[in-house]
């Protein structure tokens, strides 16, 4: 019954569901799930309360339903930024010279997951809620910079993707040797350029003090956002840096079936 014994000993080992390089995959998928719940939840909130209480910023209900949401968002953004950035910095690898090739490969996968989560947040901020801004401002008169869509788009979505981009940048800087030795130009462009979109909110709202209407969406006061998003093309450089390093690292580890 030797075969049986062998089977028993194997069955006591914990099953390996994921290979070593995808060890952070569950966290990555959870990140997608959490973000999806947040964004869909915010959209449902808009559907429920924007028409009813979000058309006139001088109404008391506007303060209750929208400005309160704005203050809650600010608190969440501050907590998430300090929590994630603080965690990534305080747990940094102080011995990167000794990093084994396999661990470095795993970290490149995790960096790619961070950037992917960042681009998922860029999708919601740059695609869905951005164009929804036009739809809402053709229905509501924008009598405040804190409209029912701005409170979500400008003051939650924009800071959130900036935080997640910052997480990707910090992860690379604190855990990968090449990014620790030098500052990656494409990663910096891809994170700091879209950050300038958040700053452009100031220019945009200043412009709208002249035109409270959204006369047309392709107006020059919106072009600050456009220039900021071009910098997302830096991801091509990050990909090239990553692939180049992975090729080198794969040559240093033994072949396995």
């Amino acid at each position, binding site marked *: 019954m030797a075969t049986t014994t062998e089977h028993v000993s194997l069955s006591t080992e914990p099953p390996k569901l994921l*290979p070593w*390089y995808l060890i952070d995959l569950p966290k990555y998928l959870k990140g997608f799930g959490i973000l999806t719940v947040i964004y869909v939840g915010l959209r449902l909130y*808009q*559907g429920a309360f*924007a028409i009813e209480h979000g058309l006139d910023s001088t109404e008391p209900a506007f303060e209750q339903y929208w400005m309160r949401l704005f203050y809650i968002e600010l608190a969440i953004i501050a907590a998430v930024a300090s929590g994630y950035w603080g965690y990534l910095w305080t747990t940094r690898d102080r011995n990167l010279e000794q990093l084994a090739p396999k661990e470095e490969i795993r970290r490149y*996968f995790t960096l*790619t997951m961070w*950037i992917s989560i960042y*681009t998922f947040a*860029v*999708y*919601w901020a*740059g*695609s*869905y809620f*951005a*164009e*929804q801004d*036009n*739809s*809402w*401002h*053709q*229905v509501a*008169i924008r009598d405040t910079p804190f409209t029912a869509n701005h409170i979500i788009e400008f003051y939650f979505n924009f800071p959130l993707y900036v935080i997640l981009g910052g997480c990707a940048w910090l992860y690379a800087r604190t855990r990968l040797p*090449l990014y620790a030795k*030098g*500052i*990656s*130009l494409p990663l*910096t*462009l891809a994170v700091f350029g879209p950050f300038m979109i958040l700053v452009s909110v100031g220019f945009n709202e200043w412009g709208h003090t002249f035109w409270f209407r*959204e006369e*047309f*969406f*392709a107006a020059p006061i*919106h*072009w600050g*956002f*456009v220039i900021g*998003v*071009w910098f*997302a*093309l*830096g*991801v*091509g*450089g990050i*990909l*090239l*840096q990553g692939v*180049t*390093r*992975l*090729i*080198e690292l*794969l040559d240093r*580890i033994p*072949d*396995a079936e």
Partner: protein
Amino acid sequence: MSAQIPISTFKPYRGEKARLARAYDYLILVLALFLFIGSFHLHFALTVGDWDFWVDWKDRQWWPLVTPLIGITFPAAVQSVLWDKFRLPLGATLCVAALLIGTWVTRVFAYHYWNYFPINMVLPATMIPGALVLDTLLMLTNSLTITSIFGGAAFALLFYPTNWPIFGMFHQPVEVANSQLTIADLFGFQYIRTGMPEYLRIIERGTLRTYGQYATPLAAFCSALLCSLMYPLWWYIGKWFADTRYLKSI
């Protein structure tokens, strides 16, 4: 310091290394999908914007000019990386397909279900046929010059005829209050947009109407010329952003 790909190490991976490389590909695919939906859509919405949002803005003068001219930017930039570095002939199609996914999701959930604009009023235009030609031409010729001239021109010239099956029906004439309008115009007057003043709803300008049926081809050929110039400009912008340098300080 910049990254140099060691050519001598290019060999097919087997076993675990092959699976690892494939897993990395899938991660990049997900990353790229959301990146291009988010970034290209924002760029497009804030520059083409209204011409793509509203059916009554889809005129003969500006729509065939502005849309391909702005639409060729990201495809050119992404092709410069995907074709030049990875020999993937799909940069333009990837960008345009990502844009179309983003616009459709928004038109349905942000315009139709939230603010009750009829979906026919906010249908997005397509640039998929032009993008396929652009990718094919780059793959077959491997030439920036030929793709700029013929691919850029094709991208612009194909735009109006390939969108005609979608939007032609909205150009049918109707008579309303003793005035002749198109159905598209009627959408614009019936569904009030509080932010858009009346004068912006009269889209066609100048002596255009005396040009009659020649207005659209004229706009398309003007767009073809500009797209031929825009394409190489954005090819090099894409190359510039895909820099692989590491800096000592910022």
